[in-house]
Each structure stands twice: as C-alpha cells, then as structure tokens.
C-alpha cells in the first residue's frame, strides 16, 4: 500500500517521458508519436486503476503519503510528496481514462495537420502536468504542475498560432488564469507563513491537518487565517476553473483544436480548479459549521451559483457549436463550485467526474461533427446530420441527455446531488441553480435540433471544401465517444442512493451526514425543469426548422443580442480593466524614465521634472476626468520622457556608480 503511494510518481512520469521523447521526434514520425502518447497514457491509466483498486474495500478512507525532501537551505527544507487517497485515485483514473480516449480521438482529428508530433508532445505534457497536480501531496508541487498546465493550455490553445484569433486567445487564457494564479500564490505563501509547511498531509503535521489551528489565527481583512488562505486559493481556482469574473478566457479557448477543448474543458485544466478546492476543502471549511459556514465557503458557493446561471444564459444565444459547450462548461463548473461551497465535497467531486465523461463526450462529438462537416463550426450551417452521421448522433444524444439532467443519465444524479446539497444551504441558490439547469436543458435541446435535425444547410456556401456532403468520421474518432457514452450512461449510478446507499460517498469517506429531507422536492423539481427545458427547446427550435443559414434566431430580441454578445463582459473589461492597466502601465513607464534619467541632471531639474509630471497627471485626471483623454495625454508625455532613457550603457554604468557612492555615504552617515 505504501509502496503504491511511493510509486504514484510513475503516473505523471510516463506521459512526461513520452512528451520528452516526442519533443525530439522528426515531424514525419506521426505513428510513432501517437503510439508513444497512447502507450504512455494507457500505462498511466493501468497504474491509476491499480492504485484505485487498492483504495477500494477499506472501511476507513485510505490515505497514504510519500514525502521526500527536495532541497534544503539552512534549516529550512522544501519537501515534495505524493499522495494516494480516494480523491486522487478517482481523479487519476478519470484523467487517464478520459485522456486516453481523447488522445485516440485526436489521432483522427489532427490527421491532416502537419504539426502532428508537436501536438501530441503538448498533449502528453499537458496530461503529465495534470496528473502531477493530481498526485502531489504538496502545494508547491501542485502549484508547479498548475502552472505547467497553464503553460500547456497556452501552447495548445494557440496551437494554430498563425490564426490571429488563436494567438489572441492563447494570450488571453494565459493572462487571465495568471491573474488568478497571483491569488493562488499569495495563498500558498500565506499558508507557508502560517503553518510552516506546504505538505498537505504529513502524519499530523501537514497543512490540511492543521486547518483547525489555522482557523484560530488571525488573517487579513478581519478573517481568520484559514479563511484568508481559502479565499486567496479560491481566486486561483476561479482563474483556472473559469468562474465569473475570470471566465472570459474559456470560450476563446475554443480556438484550439477540438481534442484540446475536450481535454481542457472536460478532464483537465478546468477540473484543476475544482479539484484544488476539493483538495484544500478542510482549509475552506475550517472554523465554520453547516449552520454558519465560513466566508470562503459562502464565496465559493455564490460565485459558483452566479457563474452557473450567468454562463447558462449566454450559452442560450451562441451560434458556434463549441462555444455553446464552452459556456455550458462554465455553467457546470459553477455547479461544482456551488456544491463545494455548500459544503458538499462529495457532490462536487462526483459532478466533476461525471461531467468529465459526458463533456468530453460532447466535445469529441462536436469534433466529429466539425470533421464530418469539413471544418464547419457554425450551427446555422449544419442541420440534418442525423442522416449522415448516425453513430455520432446517438453518442451525442446520450451526452446531451446527460448534460441536460435527464434521468437516468449520469448528469442527472450528480446534478441532483449538487442541487440537494445547495437546497439545504440556501433556497435562493437552489432556485437559481435550478433555473440554470432549466436553461441547460433548453440550450442543449436547441443545439441538438440545430445540428442534427432538419435539413443540411451547409450547401449554402460554395467555398471551403466545396459542396461536399457531410460524412461519418473514421473509427478512431467515433470509438472514443462510443466508449465515453457508455460511461455517461452508467456512471451516475455509483453516486445515487438507489443502489446500496451511495457508493461514492462511502468511497470518498467524508464524514458528513447528508441532510435528510428535501430529496423529493429537489428531484421532482430537477426532473420537471429538465423536461420543461427540453420541451421548450422543441417548441422553439424543433417544431419549425431553420431553412437557411442566414435565418435569424427565433428568439431574436434585444435581450437575446445581449446574451449573444456574452453580456458584453469582454467589452466591459476592454473599457475598464485593460484600459486602466494600460494607463497604470503608462504611468509606471513614465516614472521609470524619470527616475532613471534624472540622476544625470541636477537635482533642481529633477525636482522640476517630477513636479511637472505630477502637474500633468493631476491636470489630466482632475480637469479632463475622462479616461480616454487622460490615457492619451499620459501616453504622449510618456513618449516624450521615454526619449530620455538613453539606452546607453555608459549612463547606466554611471547610475551604478552613483548608487554605490550613495550607499557608501549612507554607511558613513550611519557610523
């Protein structure tokens, strides 16, 4: 058993080796590259399953750790470690299994791409990073994997970097998640400061085992230390798991190849945030009780709840097949966060697992559709694909029903648990989430009808691949979705009270009593809204099919247009945060030039110059007020002063010398 914990490193290591080998493969070695990738992933999957099986059949939840010292400086040592517990084992199996089938699908999807090996190299690295994140028993290692995941997503989203939109999307994804990572990193630092360790579990000395003690320490903003840390960590999770207001990168990430979307949205990157919150759950919950939850828990729940509804509304009005799924992912991640925030570690993680399967299925299915329709992503130009792509259709239907929460598919059970958990915490949140579930059913039905029903509308345009009819995809693309659809169908039963009393609960072994009561109301409501959503979808999109790709949406209205434009969040950011940042950047630049340059001239000149800037900045900000004008003039003065930074080595040298003299002077004066 402890051997298994010590061998956990093999799980991320194998894909890492595969990535390393592929990075030096010549471009032509496509089969070798894909084979290596699949082999490594399959082997990791076997290892993960082995570890998973070892955690089964214990009465007490298993938790094995293997810590080792990474390096020491002085008396301080930084440790790393691996963990084997139900949470890790379940995640690892999910990631490796889903990842494996995504890889299989990718061999078909990327078939024509000339950078096939590079793609698989990145994919392997991505999988390795994610698995490293899952098996690590140390926040530092988790953070490193976390950043690696971010890097890989950056590389993969921008895999077709020659497309300007992809290049923009990759930057957006990186920077947005980076903002969250700052919070995460602060949280890590604070945790280290307060608890003195970054190990999660360490025979009673680990950070999580000290969570109770942390709750008694004072943190910032009048919160307890544990809650402060939790809030900071959650900011990181918000970035990674695309929670409002850091969700903007996720839809843009659709610029990447579809298997990447499947990998990012289903199994890995977005799951990282939820997983991390689940992993750090003791810190979040420390100091609270079900009746009086901590601020961190409330924050998680309400952010999740808001994201769930918010994204679902946007998903209603999108044309791009992948964007619908992307917003749906945001929404579902909101569900997970909400469950975690409501105190339900098990429902959250369970929904994460089931969602990974059916969302991977949906994404791969959409990938099949895109390949089948010759790289068409606009749902208006699809239609009637049921005839051309039967296998894809049936699998997609299963995924759609699972997502829409129709019993007995996986999504129904997991979502139901989430809703139940929320119901006991807050009726308002429950109501909103139920509304989001209704929207989910509605937009998925809309998508099904637009894509698969009616007649083929793709022929309207005579470019691209010409007037080719859609066709079914090769076996290596439909096999994965077929396999995944089996799981989407069956996985839900492991988490239901129906057979033998909630296996998943028992497996994770969290000592939390599921509140009694309310099961009937919640389940009834969710079945009802699911049915209502499907029905409404049929009424709006099913009864009367779109005839032409240029037809307007039946719901065309001002509100719809707002939704179509994603509530103008991007534009809002553009107008506020980005512009503010630019302005700040200008001002910093200005400051830089002045400080650097002023030394050569007399102090009088320096004083005059600084007062000049202050006058300018003050002038512009106070008198003009408007951001635009202020920005412009600051930019202008910045350009003016930037001329003063000479770029000459000699000047910089002189500054060094002056600095040394100043230091020496200080030294003398202090004596």
């Amino acid at each position, binding site marked *: 058993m402890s051997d298994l914990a010590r061998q956990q490193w093999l799980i991320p290591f194998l894909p890492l080796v595969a990535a390393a080998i592929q990075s030096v493969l010549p471009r032509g070695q496509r089969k070798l590259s894909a084979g290596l990738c699949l082999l490594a992933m399959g082997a990791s999957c076997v290892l993960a399953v082995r570890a998973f099986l070892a955690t089964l059949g214990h009465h007490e939840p298993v938790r094995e750790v293997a810590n080792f010292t990474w390096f020491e400086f002085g008396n301080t040592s930084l440790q790393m470690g691996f963990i084997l517990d139900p949470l890790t084992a379940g995640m690892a199996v999910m990631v490796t299994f889903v990842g494996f089938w995504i890889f299989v699908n990718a061999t078909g999807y990327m078939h024509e791409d000339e950078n096939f090996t590079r793609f698989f190299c990145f994919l392997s690295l991505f999988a390795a990073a994610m698995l490293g994140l899952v098996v690590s028993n140390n926040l530092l290692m988790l953070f490193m994997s976390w950043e690696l995941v971010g890097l890989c997503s950056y590389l993969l989203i921008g895999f077709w970097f020659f497309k300007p939109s992809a290049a923009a999307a990759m930057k957006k994804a990186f920077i947005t998640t980076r903002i969250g990572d700052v919070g995460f990193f602060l949280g890590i630092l604070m945790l280290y400061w307060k608890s003195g360790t970054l190990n999660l579990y360490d025979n009673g000395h680990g950070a999580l085992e000290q969570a109770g003690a942390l709750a008694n320490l004072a943190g910032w903003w009048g919160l307890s230390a544990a809650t402060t840390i939790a809030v900071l960590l959650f900011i990181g999770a918000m970035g990674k798991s695309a929670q409002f207001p850091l969700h903007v990168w996720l839809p843009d990430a659709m610029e990447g190849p579809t298997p990447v979307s499947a990998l990012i949205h289903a199994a890995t990157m977005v799951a990282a945030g939820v997983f991390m919150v689940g992993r750090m759950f003791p810190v979040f919950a420390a100091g609270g009780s079900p009746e009086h939850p901590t601020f961190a828990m409330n924050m998680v729940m309400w952010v999740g709840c808001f994201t769930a509804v918010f994204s679902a509304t946007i998903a209603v009005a999108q044309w791009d097949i992948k964007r619908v799924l992307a917003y749906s992912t945001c929404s579902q991640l909101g569900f997970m966060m909400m469950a975690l925030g409501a105190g339900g570690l098990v429902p959250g993680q369970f929904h994460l697992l089931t969602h990974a399967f059916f969302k991977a299925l949906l994404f791969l299915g959409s990938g099949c559709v895109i390949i089948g329709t010759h790289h068409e992503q606009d749902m208006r130009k699809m239609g009637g694909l049921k005839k051309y792509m039967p296998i894809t259709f049936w699998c997609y239907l299963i995924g759609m029903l699972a997502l829409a929460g129709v019993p007995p598919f996986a999504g129904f059970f997991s979502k139901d648990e989430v809703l139940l958990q929320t119901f006991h915490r807050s009726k308002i949140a429950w109501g909103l989430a139920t509304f989001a579930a209704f929207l989910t059913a509605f937009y998925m039905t809309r998508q099904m009808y637009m894509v698969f029903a009616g007649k083929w509308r793709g022929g309207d345009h005579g470019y691209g691949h010409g007037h080719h009819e859609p066709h079914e995809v090769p076996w290596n693309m439909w096999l994965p979705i077929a396999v995944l659809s089996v799981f989407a169908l069956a996985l839900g039963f492991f988490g239901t009270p129906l057979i033998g009393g909630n296996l998943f609960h028992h497996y994770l072994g969290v000592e939390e009593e599921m509140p009694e009561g309310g099961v009937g109301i919640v389940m009834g409501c969710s079945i009802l809204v699911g049915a209502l959503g499907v029905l409404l979808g049929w009424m709006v999109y099913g009864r009367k099919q779109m005839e032409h790709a240029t037809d307007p949406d039946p719901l065309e209205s001002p509100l719809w247009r707002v939704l179509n434009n994603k509530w103008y969040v991007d534009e809002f950011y553009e107008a506020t945060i980005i512009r503010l940042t630019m302005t700040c950047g200008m001002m910093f*630049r200005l400051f830089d030039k002045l400080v650097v340059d002023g030394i050569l001239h007399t102090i009088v000149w320096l004083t005059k110059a600084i007062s000049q800037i202050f006058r300018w900045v003050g002038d512009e900000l106070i008198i003009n007020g408007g951001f635009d004008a202020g920005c412009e003039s600051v930019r202008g003065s910045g350009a003016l002063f930037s001329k003063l930074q000479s770029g000459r080595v000699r000047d910089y040298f002189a500054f060094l010398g002056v600095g040394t003299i100043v230091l020496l002077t200080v030294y003398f004066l202090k004596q």
Partner: protein
Amino acid sequence: MTIPLGHYLILAGILFAIGLGGALTRKNAIIVLIAIEVMFNAGILNLIAFWHYGHYASLTAQMFAIFAISIAAAESAIGLALVIAVYRHYKSVDVDEMKSLKG
C-alpha cells in the same frame, strides 16, 4: 614586509575607481571592456590580499580567485564576440551609438 592590509585594499579601491572612470568616460566598446577587466582585477587582488593577511591555510580565496579569473575570461570572450557582432551590424564600436534599447 611591513605593508599592512589596508594598503592593498586602498590600491584595489583606486584601481577599481580607475576602471569605473574608464567605463564611464570612454565611448569605445573595447575600452569599456578593458575598463571592466581592470575592475575585475581590482576585485581579485582584494581576494588574494585578504588571503595573505588572513586565514592562510584556507584554499577559499585562491579558489575564488581562480573562478573569478575564469569567469572574467569567459566574459571577455563573449563580450568581444558581441563587440564584433555589433560592429558588423552598426559598423561602429561606439557604445553611445548602441542605444536601440532606449525608451
């Protein structure tokens, strides 16, 4: 020998200042490199002087001196290669003309 340690330190300080002055006042990149070498040597002289007047049995100072000399050699090789590359580009070795990095 009755020269106290301070004499060596002052000598090194003066040499360092000379190097610094050279780096500040000259425009030719090669002379700037020369001046940097002067500063390097002033620093190494300090090491050896401290070794001589201090813990004689220790190897540390000599090791540091050797490493510093090696680094200086590597630095000058790279520096001169850069000067040559810059010369090819700008047809000049005037450091004041190498200001593409200006703001």
